């Protein structure tokens, strides 16, 4: 039969299910007959459950994206720096030379014969990225890092996260309530994403500085995969609006955003 000292010594391992059956049984028997030790065990159990229930630290969505793009960049680097699989040390150098020439011919032929689709234009790639971001944001819990219908909460949230201050205005009166904001990435650069709602439709507004000399441009609409993307440049800012909302209402939203801000 175990004594208390001996039982307490192994109590943690018992709670963690790390004891063999014989020891487990002995501890169980002791606990049944000993109030002090079962009190200790009860405390341990409560503490263990509380520890398991402590909320996990959640990874910021931005970090997840940064990791992914860093990995893609790294994978790109590796495939560039390793040209061919290492060849066996050639005891017949001429054989290697012939093999290399054959390989070169094959590669050339491959390049010439494969008719490639024309590369997507920069703006097309961009609007596809905007849509991808939008879709990602609709997936569980990625929509907003700061959830608030108050522009005075959302706007300061961006301070210190971006080196520019995005426009955050609630258009609830006009039927486009503000939902929140988050950081996002477009073409590998950070953007402010400001999230609005129109009935059941989510609207993402992306903004970032366009560089000092970019001229203003008027809104342009493109449609891919059932999503509308409207792009323009205004007062040194690039803006993208994306949603599955109908075109007319989306235009209305764009006009609201483009309206000069008072003050």
């Amino acid at each position, binding site marked *: 039969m175990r004594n208390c*000292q001996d039982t*307490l*010594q192994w*109590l*943690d*391992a018992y709670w*963690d299910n*790390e004891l063999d059956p014989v020891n487990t049984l002995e501890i169980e028997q002791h606990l049944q007959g000993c109030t002090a030790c079962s*009190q*200790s065990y009860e*405390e*341990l159990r*409560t*503490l*263990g459950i*509380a*520890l*398991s229930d*402590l*909320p*996990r*630290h*959640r*990874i*910021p969505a931005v*970090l*997840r994206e*940064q*990791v*992914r793009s*860093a*990995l*893609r960049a*790294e*994978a*790109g680097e*590796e*495939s560039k720096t390793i040209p061919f699989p290492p060849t066996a040390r050639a005891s017949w150098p001429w054989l290697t030379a012939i093999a290399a020439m054959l390989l070169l011919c094959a590669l050339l032929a491959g390049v010439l014969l494969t008719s490639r689709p024309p590369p997507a234009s920069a703006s097309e790639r961009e609007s596809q990225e905007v849509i991808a971001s939008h879709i990602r944001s609709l997936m569980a819990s990625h929509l907003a890092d700061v959830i608030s219908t108050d522009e005075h909460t959302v706007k300061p949230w961006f301070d210190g996260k971006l080196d520019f201050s995005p426009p955050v205005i609630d258009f609830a009166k006009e039927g486009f309530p503000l939902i929140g904001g988050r950081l996002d990435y477009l073409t590998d650069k950070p953007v402010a994403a400001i999230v609005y709602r129109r009935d059941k439709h989510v609207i993402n507004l992306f903004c970032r500085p366009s560089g000092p000399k970019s001229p203003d441009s008027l809104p342009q609409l493109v449609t891919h995969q059932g999503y509308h993307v409207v792009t323009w440049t205004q007062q040194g800012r690039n803006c993208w609006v994306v949603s599955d909302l109908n075109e007319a209402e989306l235009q209305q939203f764009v006009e609201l955003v483009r309206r000069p801000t008072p003050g």
Partner: protein
Amino acid sequence: MSYSNKLSRFEQLILPHLDAAYNLARWLTNHDQDAQDVVQEASLRAFRAFDTFYGENGRAWLLTIVRNTAYNLLQKNKPSRLATPFDEELHGSSGPVESATPMTLLRGAEEERNLRAAVEELPVEFREALILRHQDGLSYREIALIAGVPTGTVMSRLARARARLKEFLARGIREEEAS
């Protein structure tokens, strides 16, 4: 293995554990930005070392790298905290510690905050064992592999960490009653 293949295998086997990676990094560093740096660096390191991974346990593998990266960072940032190697015997008696006051525990947001604060106060070796055990559900053996110590050490670290938490929380309750 082609490189796009390597990337997609990595995304499939390792990236699902990014949440656990961040959680561990955040608990070990007690700091948002440090945790982010650790996760960034650890995932790149993991990717570079991915050829040495044989697909047994992606999570434990990634967590090992995260753990080592976090320790490197802690050593660089706060040499004082890790300068003397952690001494198992020095920290408290080796026997079980009984808390003087029965512990009534833990309901509601405030108790949760207290517990979190208490865990953050523990030495990093204790925190590591607690998080891997309670939040990742790993066995003593798995924790031992990650931390690079014998399983007996994992057991005693866990027991001592919990004893300290009980003590801390009991003290908190006594102070509350006194005031």
